[in-house]
């Protein structure tokens, strides 16, 4: 028999997940909620006498009505739709935002489920002189109240004991929230109809269901109410229409009367200082969100984030790369030469390397995001920059992921998890691969060094520098434009709103930070990593088979392979962009990672040593010609190639991580398609227009 389910619910940022992690340690796994693509962690949890429950960490939610899939998952679980009915719910209540937290608690208690309130961060509230009377709260709500400090692990034993006691209690008829008379009559009518349908395992929660139905019935997007019998849907709609005809607003009546209950609770249990002290947070904010000071701090913090990702991860990446090369040499030395060795060396070992090489950047980015988030500054980042981001339809919280995109799209896509709404998150992950990542740099360097002479200038600047700058500008412009376009087309969501909490500033807990970084890295290795490894092996096979005749050099082998043939096949398609089949093979090889373009090209051109700074490859490219004798790498073809690399989704790891984070193949395929079309069209325009105008053709 499956163990009883205990849910952990709470507002976003209430410390819910930290508490969940503190309770369960590293035994978590992704809970299986069929049909949803939302992550939801679950772990076995021992509550006493060796009895085990399944503890599930629900996505943060504000109420028992839902606008997003995350919230819908929470609501469904709390109401016991499509999953085992929960035995107990732990509601994590942030004492520094007590009213809003109790609004959710009151709604959950009204379902009749046994509830334990984890009164979190009350130490912090106490610092501002705010005292919460836990015993009084317990007496008034009927839910056991336990004080916790999730970041320090305080109160866990008491919480476990309270969960143990609560699981022994049974569902009761939920204590009714006092409603206005007309609304009370509506709810009673709907409640009776729900009981008649016999769809509830716990008839006591019929009142809560009635409330949820009235609040969630949506005339346009009806997905909230999937699985609700048509008769109930029709009745709900009739009741809403009747109320509207009488000039009543049902949503307002429900939420207002719930808040009346909350206000009464807060009045009874909270003691505030007679004169409000100016809190530390307030004093910090007057600097950190100040027009000038705030902008300066913001720029400085983002500079550090960028610097860390861009350069400080370099030594670790170089170390991993050299270890991979050593491992490849070792395997090649101990195994007999042959196809199997080649598979292990260039498929498996290289593939593992392709995965592990992302770990330093992912670890560092999530360490930084953890520091910013847990200290409370990340919310201020969104507050400060939202105005700019909004102009292209992005959320203020998209800024850090977009900035990280300059370093690498893989950790940046993972960083979109800090954005609550799925639409906002998808939009961000679909456009940030357009940001010019560091793996594109070797391509730009090779191309500019090939097609521009060192002394060549555009105005007072060197031609290479101008081109490099132009590519970065192009990437930012493309990302922002794509966001604006996608927002109005593919991801046309409901009216964009921002409801941003600004939590008090606090010191991040090292233990929590380390745990979260490890969770992210592990999730990447397990989920996206396996896909990247598989794709590496597929690409290796494309580049290695069919085998060339024995004793052929690597160049000949590559030209003989599927990829080499494919290069020839696509030449008619890419020739209008100024690329011949050899560039085509390089582009195919670059799908492993963009910088691989350089080494693939070197093999095609039979160059022994490969390095972007290597003169032989540049020389070979400079002298390369089309069959009719025209120069291949004209400055125009170079620019066209760089434009292609800015815009094309030439990165299997990005595709793998978007697959992982969006939960479906639909979005990575869409992303690959739109970026490829964009890149092709842009390069086509550059090369064709340039050719007609006679620019950079000599």
């Amino acid at each position: 028999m499956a163990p009883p389910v205990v849910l952990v619910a709470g507002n976003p940022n209430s410390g819910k997940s930290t508490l969940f992690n503190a309770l369960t340690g590293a035994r978590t796994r992704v809970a299986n909620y069929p049909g949803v693509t939302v992550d939801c962690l679950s772990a076995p949890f021992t509550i006493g006498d060796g009895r085990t429950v399944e503890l599930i960490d629900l996505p943060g939610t504000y109420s028992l009505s839902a606008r997003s899939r995350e919230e819908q998952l929470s609501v469904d679980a709390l109401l016991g739709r499509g999953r085992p009915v929960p035995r107990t719910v732990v509601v994590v209540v942030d004492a520094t935002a007590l009213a809003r937290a109790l609004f959710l608690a009151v709604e959950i208690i009204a379902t009749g489920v046994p509830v334990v309130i984890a009164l979190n961060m009350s130490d912090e509230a106490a610092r501002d002189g705010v005292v919460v009377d836990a015993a009084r709260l317990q007496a008034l709500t009927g839910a056991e109240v336990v004080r916790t400090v999730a970041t320090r692990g305080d109160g866990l034993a008491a919480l476990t004991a309270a969960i143990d006691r609560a699981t022994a209690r049974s569902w009761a008829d939920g204590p009714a929230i006092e409603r206005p008379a007309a609304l009370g009559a509506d709810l009673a009518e709907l409640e009776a109809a729900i009981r008649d349908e016999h769809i509830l395992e716990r008839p006591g929660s019929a009142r809560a269901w009635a409330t949820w139905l009235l609040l969630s019935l949506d005339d346009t997007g009806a997905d909230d109410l999937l699985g609700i019998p048509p008769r109930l849907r029709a009745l709900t709609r009739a009741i809403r229409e009747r109320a509207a005809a009488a000039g009543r607003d049902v949503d307002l009546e429900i939420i207002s009367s719930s808040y009346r209950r909350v206000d009464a609770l807060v009045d009874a249990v909270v003691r505030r200082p007679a004169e409000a002290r100016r809190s530390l947070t307030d004093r910090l904010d007057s600097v950190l969100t100040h027009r000038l000071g705030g902008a300066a701090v913001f720029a400085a913090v983002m500079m550090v984030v960028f610097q860390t990702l861009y350069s400080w991860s370099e030594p670790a990446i170089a170390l991993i790369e050299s270890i991979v090369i050593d491992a490849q040499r070792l395997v090649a030395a101990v195994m007999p030469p042959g196809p199997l060795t080649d598979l292990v060396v260039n498929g498996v070992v290289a593939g593992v390397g392709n995965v592990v090489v992302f770990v330093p950047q992912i670890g560092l980015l999530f360490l930084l995001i953890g520091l910013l988030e847990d200290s409370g500054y990340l919310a201020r980042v969104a507050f400060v920059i939202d105005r700019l981001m909004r102009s292209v339809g992005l959320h203020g919280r998209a800024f850090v992921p977009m900035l990280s995109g300059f370093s690498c799209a893989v950790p940046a896509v993972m960083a979109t998890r800090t954005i609550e709404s799925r639409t906002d998150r998808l939009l961000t992950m679909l456009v940030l691969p357009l940001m010019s990542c560091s793996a594109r740099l070797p391509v730009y360097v090779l191309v500019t060094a090939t097609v521009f002479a060192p002394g060549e200038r555009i105005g007072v600047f060197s031609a290479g520098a101008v081109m490099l700058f132009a590519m970065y500008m192009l990437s930012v412009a493309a990302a922002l434009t794509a966001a604006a376009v996608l927002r109005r087309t593919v991801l046309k969501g409901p009216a964009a709103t921002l409801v941003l909490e600004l939590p008090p500033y606090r010191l991040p807990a090292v233990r929590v930070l380390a745990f979260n970084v490890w969770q992210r890295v592990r999730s990447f290795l397990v989920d996206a990593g396996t896909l990247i490894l598989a794709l590496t092996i597929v690409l290796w096979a494309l580049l290695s088979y069919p085998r060339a005749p024995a004793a052929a050099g690597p160049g000949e082998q590559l030209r003989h392979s599927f990829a080499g043939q494919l290069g020839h096949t696509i030449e008619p398609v890419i020739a209008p962009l100024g690329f011949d089949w050899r560039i085509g093979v390089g582009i195919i090889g670059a799908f492993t990672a963009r910088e691989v373009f350089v080494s693939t090209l070197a093999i095609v051109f039979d160059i022994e040593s490969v390095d972007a700074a290597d003169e032989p490859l540049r020389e070979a490219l400079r002298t390369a010609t089309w069959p009719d004798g025209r120069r291949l790498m004209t400055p125009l073809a170079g620019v066209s190639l760089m434009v292609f690399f800015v815009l094309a989704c030439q990165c299997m790891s990005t595709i793998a991580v978007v697959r992982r984070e969006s939960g479906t193949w639909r979005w990575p395929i869409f992303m690959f398609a739109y970026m490829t079309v964009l890149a092709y069209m842009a390069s086509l325009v550059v090369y064709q227009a340039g050719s007609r105008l006679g620019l950079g053709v000599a």
Partner: protein
Amino acid sequence: MTVKFGSLAALPVGKSAVVSRVRGDRAVVRRLLEVGLVPGTRVTLRRVAPLGDPIELNVRHFALSIRRADALRIDIE
């Protein structure tokens, strides 16, 4: 007697007012109500972001930031 004051977006920094009505798209209204901006609630405009938008409110003793476009739909008195 209450005096209609206009929208929350017009409230000067540091001043308080009482919410009288939240208008607009149902989903947005519901979200604003749920985070505590129900009629009868006293809100204080704490500060404005460096670029003029969004704004920071104090609602029921916690800090909440919303965009001006949404604040325009909140009537105060």
